[in-house]
């Protein structure tokens, strides 16, 4: 059974259609990248998969159950979101933020117990943020904050993690650090990871499967080798490119040609 199943999904803001009839399935334990130009519907798709928006038409199933039929906390125990812009202007400590990830597992008056502390500590260690635990989130770098938000997502103990452009504001070294972390989580815990990302070369290096979006439709999907073709890229981005195999990483790589 697919962990996520989307059927004939339509959605838009006011009267502007953004998702235009999308259907797909995602297998458990896959690392899936959504790529496509700005406005292609990547971010919107991520939010729809987290039930933040209500579709105009169509249905989304999570582990076989329709997404609307979940209680809010129940869904948060299955799916965690790492939003695009996580700037926090209030001086919570790193540990306080990560501890918030336990919210969906707790009743309103239930206190955190030893197990919660262990999960939070493990989440911080896995994301290399344990040393930062007493620092205020207002005082750490963008890359560090992104890791903290991922730690918070891990503390939710989800089976699916959605990330919206997790690397877009980061330096190259931090981009690689985050993606290595995601791949490690994916391999070690069999967590399904769905990431909206605009860097095609990074997507190709890390993904099991790539969905290429354009104008709210899925133009092509499958392994990087199937999707990242000269024809697809030139069609979607309207840009002449060369697709070649990178001899260092052994993954496909694109180079724009009209430079």
């Amino acid at each position, binding site marked *: 059974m697919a962990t996520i199943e989307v059927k004939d999904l339509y959605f838009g803001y006011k009267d502007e259609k953004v998702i235009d009839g999308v259907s797909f399935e995602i297998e458990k334990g896959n690392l899936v990248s959504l790529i496509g130009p700005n406005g292609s519907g990547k971010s919107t798709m991520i*939010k729809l998969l987290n039930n933040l928006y209500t579709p105009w038409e169509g249905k989304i199933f999570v582990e076989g159950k329709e997404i609307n039929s979940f209680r809010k906390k129940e869904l948060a125990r299955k799916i965690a979101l790492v939003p695009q812009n996580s700037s926090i202007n209030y001086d919570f400590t790193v540990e306080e933020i990560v501890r918030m990830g336990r919210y969906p597992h707790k009743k309103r008056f239930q206190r955190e117990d030893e197990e919660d502390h262990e999960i939070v500590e493990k989440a911080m260690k896995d994301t290399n943020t344990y040393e930062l635990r007493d620092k205020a989130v207002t005082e750490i770098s963008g890359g560090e904050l992104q890791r903290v938000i991922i730690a918070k997502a891990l503390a939710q103990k989800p089976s699916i993690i959605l990330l919206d452009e997790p690397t877009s504001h980061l330096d190259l070294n931090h981009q690689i650090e985050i993606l290595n972390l995601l791949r490690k989580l994916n391999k070690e815990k069999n967590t399904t990871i769905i990431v909206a990302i605009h860097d095609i070369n990074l997507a190709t290096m890390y993904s099991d499967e790539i969905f290429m979006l354009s104008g709210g439709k899925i133009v092509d999907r499958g392994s990087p080798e199937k999707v990242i073709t000269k024809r697809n890229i030139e069609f979607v981005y309207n840009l002449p490119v060369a697709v070649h195999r990178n001899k260092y990483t052994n993954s496909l790589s694109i180079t724009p040609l009209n430079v």
Partner: protein
Amino acid sequence: MVLLGLSAILILSIGFFSVLGTADIRSIDVFRIVLSKIPIIKRHISIEDLPASHEAIIWTIRLPRVLLGVLVGASLSMAGAAFQGLFKNPMADPYVIGISSGAAFGATIAIVLGINISFLNISTISIFAFIGALGAVFIVINIARVSHKIPTTTLLLAGIATSQFLTAIMSLFMVMNSKDLAKIVYWTMGTLAGKGWKPLVSISIPSITSMIIMNFFVKDLNIMLTGEESAQSMGVDVEKVKIYVLVLGTFMVSMSVSISGIIGFVGLIIPHMVRIVLGADHKILLPASALVGGIFMIFADLVARTVISPMELPVGIITALFGGPFFLYLLRASKR
């Protein structure tokens, strides 16, 4: 720990501020008089060495006034702290966003029309204050909202415009109903003077209950500070929490305003001060703001009733005199 310390300071302040005034009374006597009123304990406490006039001053005038001050200061500060978190906006406070003037407006209508329909022992004036405040906050938030956000500038503009408009209508009522002038003047200036036990008792249970219930939402408020979509994705029912917190805060403020009138700046500066010292966690911030607000309020009232003794100033003037410059100082300090 911090909360215990603040509670102790609050209790000592109640004793200390009760005695300061024109008559010469010792702090310890306040506690003795209070204890002498409690069944069982009173057998062990003798206050026969105290002049009867002291007992009368403390028991019938000072003590209800100081306790009312604690309740008003605590309600305004806790509501301010919760609203600042809810709107993620440092300028949100009951005075600025029009709740206080809405409540005063509702109370004025009840006084002028002489309506009397008390409910659950809450007076008509308090009920009308609550209705007026809910109306005002609904109007202000709908004017201030730009798509899903409530920016500081529009919040301030909408709040100030609504407040001024409602205050103008109140002034109109004053001119037209000159026999109620004194009452309405108190509402627009804010005072804790001459209330006695009755109004204090009638608002204490609703106020304290709403303050306790507000603390049920500390986790949700904390998570909402990290962003609304993020909170929603973590299972927080954001829209429901917003409504609960808004209604609870409006309720506790209206209860206070219906007795004391519009007292500004308390709900703005106290939460800021507490947040700077103790951090943003609502679990600490809400109760600590209430305690510090109570202490600040009775201190301001002490100044109001002693500075030009035997005359009195409206306490709203004192809170503004302390609050305005202090707030500017905080703004400067946080910029650096």
